[in-house]
């Protein structure tokens, strides 16, 4: 699993406190655990509202792990590192 490329999308709506926090947290985790094997796309729904439908976005901010399977969504400001890593299947639940 370590070999796989991660494709991540972070949906935000404008530069809100939560979005900024989420993006900051996400970047920290990725640099730490997925260095060099991830792509991160940040989508601002205020600019592209039509994109919300495709990934079934409800909550903001939402992090979507497109690849590898299974698709997972993590909502919130990603402040709980443990949960995020489990959610991204980087770390299994202990």
């Amino acid at each position, binding site marked *: 699993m370590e070999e796989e490329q991660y494709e991540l999308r972070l949906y935000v709506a404008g530069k809100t406190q939560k979005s900024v926090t989420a993006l900051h947290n996400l970047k920290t985790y990725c640099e730490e655990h997925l260095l060099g094997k991830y792509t991160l796309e940040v989508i601002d729904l205020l600019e592209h509202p039509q994109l919300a439908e495709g990934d*079934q976005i409800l909550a*903001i901010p939402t992090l979507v792990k497109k690849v590898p399977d299974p698709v997972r969504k993590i909502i919130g400001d990603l402040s709980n590192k443990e*949960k995020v890593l489990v959610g991204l299947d980087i770390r299994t639940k202990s």
Partner: protein
Amino acid sequence: MIDQTNFTGQMSTLPKTPTGITGLDEITMGGFPSGRPTLICGSAGCGKTLFSLEFIVRGALQFDEPGVFIAFEEKANELATNVASLGFDLNKLQEEKKIKIDYIHVDKSEIEETGEYDLEGLFIRLGYAIDSIGAKRVVLDTIENLFAGLSNQAVLRAELRRLFQFLKNKGVTAIITGERGESSLTRQGLEEYVSDCVILLDHRIINQISTRRLRIVKYRGSVHGTNEYPFLIDEEGISVLPVTSLQLNKEVSTNVVSSGISTLDSMMSKGGFYQGSSILVSGTAGTGKTSIAATFADATCKRKDRCLYFAFEESPNQIIRNMGSIGLNLQNHINDGLLQFHAARPTLYGLEMHLVAIHKAIRKFKPQVVILDPITNLITVGTVSDVKSMLVRLIDFLQEEQITVMFTALTLNTIVNEQTDEGVSSLVDAWLLIKDIELNGERNRGLYIMKSRGMQHSNQIREFVITNDGLDLIDVYLGPDGVLTGSAREAQMLLEETGEVLHTHAISRKDRELLRKRKVLEAKIDSLQTEYESTEEELNKVYIEEEIKKGVMQQTRNKMTEIRRGHSTPDKNTKADKKE
């Protein structure tokens, strides 16, 4: 709250958005509150989704108001398949940008929550969907699914409140659906957020027959019907029945329609029933109620009016065949499109459904005459009071439409005054009662008019006979043992005829006697006359002789005088003098 309702209602009328759902706009007095959310709640399978979807579809088709349907439960294509049977082509409407169906999938297993979040994504999607087609109507079906997918209740509740505010700001008329809760209207207490209009759907099963009902729990700022209204889901969507009209201000007609039996018409001073009135024909089994109804139908069709016949007992073909035996050809009228049969077993569905079905059929066919045969069978699917209330509503509706209605009712009780006929006897305008009269070992039918509002009617019992050529009424004979019917009546008629002959005979004998007496007397008068004449002649003879004698004596005296004066007289005169 009620005070407030009335107050704001008077101050300025609340703008309303018509739903287009048959009957619903009548009980909400115009539709749902425009630009505000309305909550529709009810237990599973009561029709919430269909209700809200019809709101969207009708809005798009009839009122040119595009709508967005946010589905949390079913996917767009599933929805489209589900409502295709109702004739709604969702895919086509979507292509035409009249509606937009957005499926929002919430799956707890896919979602991990960490830290703070809000539902801005939902708002953006909703906003985007609304803006993309310029929607005026929005449905969220059902938003409670969010509670299953997301665990942070505090965020959810705060966001819901924001959502409704958002919808109001958007100026869309929204429907939120919610599952019925144990002790509250909805499981998640959505009614806290939607306080303008709440509609409760219900699906009840009584005596194994299910009835859907709708009730407006509240409607802020508007008057509305408060009853439970039954509704029906069929191939044309939902029809709600505003079952009781609130006022008794119906138009009335003075036109009269014939019953098809001329002798029956003549029993009523106006020569028939008033148009738009209700007629009850009641009687025990086998008294010919259906025959009367069929004759009425036949007469209606012969006037080129349309007649709708609801048969709850016999199949149309059976009725047509049976009525052929009394000389009615109903098939012709069916072929001409003037007569339509609707046959249904009463147990097919609940009373309310029957009523809705009857309503629909009437609205479709627009008949001048409606026949329900027999209403008593409806009792198998409801209590007497249920049937009564249904019939009240039906009569109400028919009178409004100026449709003449004939009910037939089977009476099990032979004592007329004790039976109630589903209690409709007080509602109907005319009541014909057919009664069995058992006498001399035979059973005959007696018909009389119990009441006939607004016109004089005969108080007599007529014998009701069914012949090959149709129905007829014959005067019954009142004998010492009561009324005489059937062969007893025939016998009585014969008896009277014989009496007549005898009587005539007697009279002629007397006449002859009189004649003879007269002849005798005349003969007597003749002889007396003769006697009188002879007596008169005798008397006349004496009198004439007297006269002659007197004349002769005068002459003699004159001659004597002349002789004395010295004239010579011939001998003859002298001789005459001597004789004197």
